[in-house]
């Protein structure tokens, strides 16, 4: 099995690196769009999928990241300083948002995060002096990289691809470390976790903070990608879509965000051939997908394995029963 997945990785890497120059401009743009949402969804997957929290306000951090980078660049500060600044700010705000999580039960936590998203969106919409209000911020530049211009869609795509891989590797390292098990313990059985010495409080706060930082970085990349930002993509509706992406891809699966973001971003584009019906197909696909695979797309291998085990177990039982009834 390992050889197969290595080949799969190499093929994917090859496609992602080599294919884009042959795509049309829009195709490259769509790929970048997808990558940006992979990063954002990876963060939400950590908070919701691995740590078991409820977060319906993720788009707020996405927006904070976007606005921070956009505003700093407008003020003449380099993208490369703006991006970490966005990540840091989102990290801090994420910790603050984590505090209600320590006090309120699941459903109310979801409401609190919704409220947070709403507040942030209202600020974006109304504080024109800062954010440009509904007029937004336009003419956001693309950064340069050691003197190279990244203005073209293709060049910027390679930057976004690189960032996605980097953020993915960081997250993988974190999840493979003891932190990964601590988060899972927090999600599956917080009471047991505490009695085992796991500091559920700190891990909860950090799951929000790290998830938020990821969204912030994604937002910063988003700003330079679309080059014009306004409050609409950072409202509660987007948070709900991001939540959908995590759940559809498979919460708690490392590559879930890749699939989930594809479903959320790329699938609607592919479905455009259905014209007026494309949203209906999308919505129905989501419903059917949830009924068939409640644990997300990436749970398919686990389900196949479980079915196989069940078959083997019942075959073993049948064989044992047969032997018991056999004449001696």
């Amino acid at each position, binding site marked *: 099995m390992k050889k197969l997945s290595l080949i799969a990785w190499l093929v994917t890497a090859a496609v992602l690196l080599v294919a884009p120059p042959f795509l049309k401009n829009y195709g490259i743009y769509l790929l970048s769009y997808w990558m940006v949402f992979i990063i954002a969804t990876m963060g939400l997957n950590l908070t919701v999928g691995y740590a078991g929290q409820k977060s319906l306000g993720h788009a707020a951090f996405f927006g904070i990241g976007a606005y921070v980078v956009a505003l700093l660049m407008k003020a003449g500060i380099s993208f490369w300083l703006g991006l970490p600044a966005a990540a840091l700010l989102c990290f801090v705000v994420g910790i603050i948002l984590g505090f209600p999580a320590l006090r309120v039960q699941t459903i109310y936590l979801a409401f609190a995060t919704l409220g947070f998203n709403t507040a942030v969106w209202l600020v974006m919409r109304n504080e024109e002096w800062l954010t440009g209000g509904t007029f937004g911020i336009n003419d956001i530049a693309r950064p340069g990289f050691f003197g190279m211009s990244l203005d073209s869609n293709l060049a910027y795509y390679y930057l976004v691809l690189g960032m996605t891989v980097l953020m993915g590797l960081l997250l993988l390292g974190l999840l493979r470390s*003891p932190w*990964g*098990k601590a988060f*899972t313990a927090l999600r*599956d*059985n917080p009471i047991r976790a*505490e*009695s085992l*010495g*796991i500091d559920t409080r700190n891990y909860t706060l950090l799951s929000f903070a790290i998830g938020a930082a990821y969204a912030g970085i994604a937002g910063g990349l988003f700003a330079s990608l679309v080059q014009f930002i306004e409050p609409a993509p950072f409202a509660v509706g987007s948070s709900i879509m991001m939540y959908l992406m995590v759940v559809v891809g498979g919460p708690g699966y490392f590559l879930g965000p890749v699939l989930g973001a594809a479903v959320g971003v790329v699938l609607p584009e592919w479905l455009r051939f259905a014209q007026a019906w494309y949203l209906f197909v999308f919505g129905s696909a989501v419903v059917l997908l949830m009924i068939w695979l409640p644990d997300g797309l990436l749970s398919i291998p686990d389900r196949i394995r479980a079915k196989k085990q069940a078959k083997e177990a019942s075959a073993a039982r049948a064989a044992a029963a047969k032997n018991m009834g056999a004449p001696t």
Partner: protein
Amino acid sequence: MTHPHHHDRAAGAPVLQVTGLKKAYGAIQAVGGVSFSVQPGEIFGVIGPNGSGKTTLFNSMLGQITPDEGKIELNGEDVTQLGPLELNRRGVGRTFQTLQVFGKMTVRDNLIVAAQEHSGSMFSRMFAPGDSGLGARADALIDQFRIRHVADKKAGELSYGQQKLVDIAMAFMSEPDLVLLDEPCAGVNPSLVGGISTLLKQLNQNPKIGSHSSFVVIEHNMDFVMDLCHRIMVMVEGKVMAIGTPAEIRANKEVLEAYLGS
């Protein structure tokens, strides 16, 4: 072996000292003044009919609830107000009456996570190796509990009895001074009860893991308790009726009337 929570305990001093513990829920006095002590290396049983306050006593000792009155001392330190997290760091482990394993992790990972946060700051573990150097200890317990053949399966896929063993093993991973076992035989197939008793005796005496552990065991299975425990405390209606060796308890007329029935 590192035991950061080992205090310089005076010779002969108890591991656990409970004095005058009281807890009421509204008008009901669940625990009405309970005192006892547990010696190092001792297996201490707690028995009593339903509603006698055993669970409330346990939950107080484990920091899940705060008692109204009374004192709980661990190795001489007053731990009455501490919560489960701090108690774990001070060397208290527990098993649960209802299964509480982490179903989506493998058995081996369950054991590793059971001890990984016991000492040191969480930030030292960021990006550190996944098994935190606990692999050998986990494997030793897996062998001792004879669950090697399921060690790499997800804990949720095991049979009830196997999960129970994992649950108990998890409590011992951090090499605690005191382990509280909440009905370790609950729901377990009678054929396995003997195995659990043997395991617990082994853990109590084994110099590698668990030998300095004292146990406090709540159980309803009388044979199990009489066979395993060094001393037994009988609780009735929130108060201590008797404390003694199994033989003394068996011969105690009051206990026989109130509880053992026969």
